[in-house]
């Protein structure tokens, strides 16, 4: 599998570290239901068959986090962008 890094170009997946689901938002720790919300945030994951938005860290290249859209059934990658946008 090759990941198209916007800065480095297409690179082998071995240059990247995987973090996981990029659609989650960290809950507010001050909210009254924070314990339940953090349990869901940390442990509960969808397991989609098909398009998935996920974080990959380009540790062997530009050292930037990428948000990658990958089809979990084929590994086809529809797009990748720098987390936090371009500088």
């Amino acid at each position: 599998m090759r990941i198209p890094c916007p800065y480095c170009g297409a690179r082998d997946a071995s240059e990247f570290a995987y973090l996981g689901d990029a659609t989650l938002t960290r809950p507010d720790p001050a909210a009254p239901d924070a314990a339940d919300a953090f349990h869901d945030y940390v442990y509960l994951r969808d397991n989609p068959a098909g398009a998935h938005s996920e974080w990959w860290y380009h540790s062997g290249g530009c050292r930037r986090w990428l948000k990658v859209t990958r089809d979990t059934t084929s590994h086809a990658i529809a797009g990748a962008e720098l987390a936090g946008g371009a500088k």
Partner: protein
Amino acid sequence: MTSALDALPVTQMPPDGHYGPAGKHGVTARIFDPPALATLAARHGAGAALSAAARVELGLDLADAPRLSRANGLTAIGTGPGRWFLLAEAPEDLPAHLAALAPHAAITEQTDAMVGFELSGPHVRDLLAKGVTVDLDPSVFPPGAAATSNVAHINTSFWREPGDERFVFLAGRSYAVAFARFLVASGAAFGLELVHRG
């Protein structure tokens, strides 16, 4: 299979000399200490101000891309968005030389951190094909192109020099022996000349 590396401790730099069949001269590898090296990292939101300052103060067009920019004895290699290696051709106080950029970038002296490997010869890309996963064909990796990537499990930044077919790799100093062993193991079949310079 036996090779010249079998008798060498893995911690010892392979000695200068010819590796491989006598009379074959496929690749020359020159190992060198960069005379002066620093990293440059644009401060948040300061990319445009940094490139303007580099142009005005140093005459250097800093490309925010994996490419080489060179002017007035300075070479910049893009390593990531808003980040570069800066190399000088002669020993000097590089952070002092770059002081005009300090309002726009973090500048870190790195001269002792990296070892350079300059590779040339008719079989240089045949050697590199055994460890580099980036396409080095000139149609996609032309003179001045640069990349940061893992080569033989060693993280390196490298580029193709303008002009004749010549590549320069920078590897962390503690990985220099391992990188030299990769060159010997992969290059001896083509005839490898290993020399230390400077």
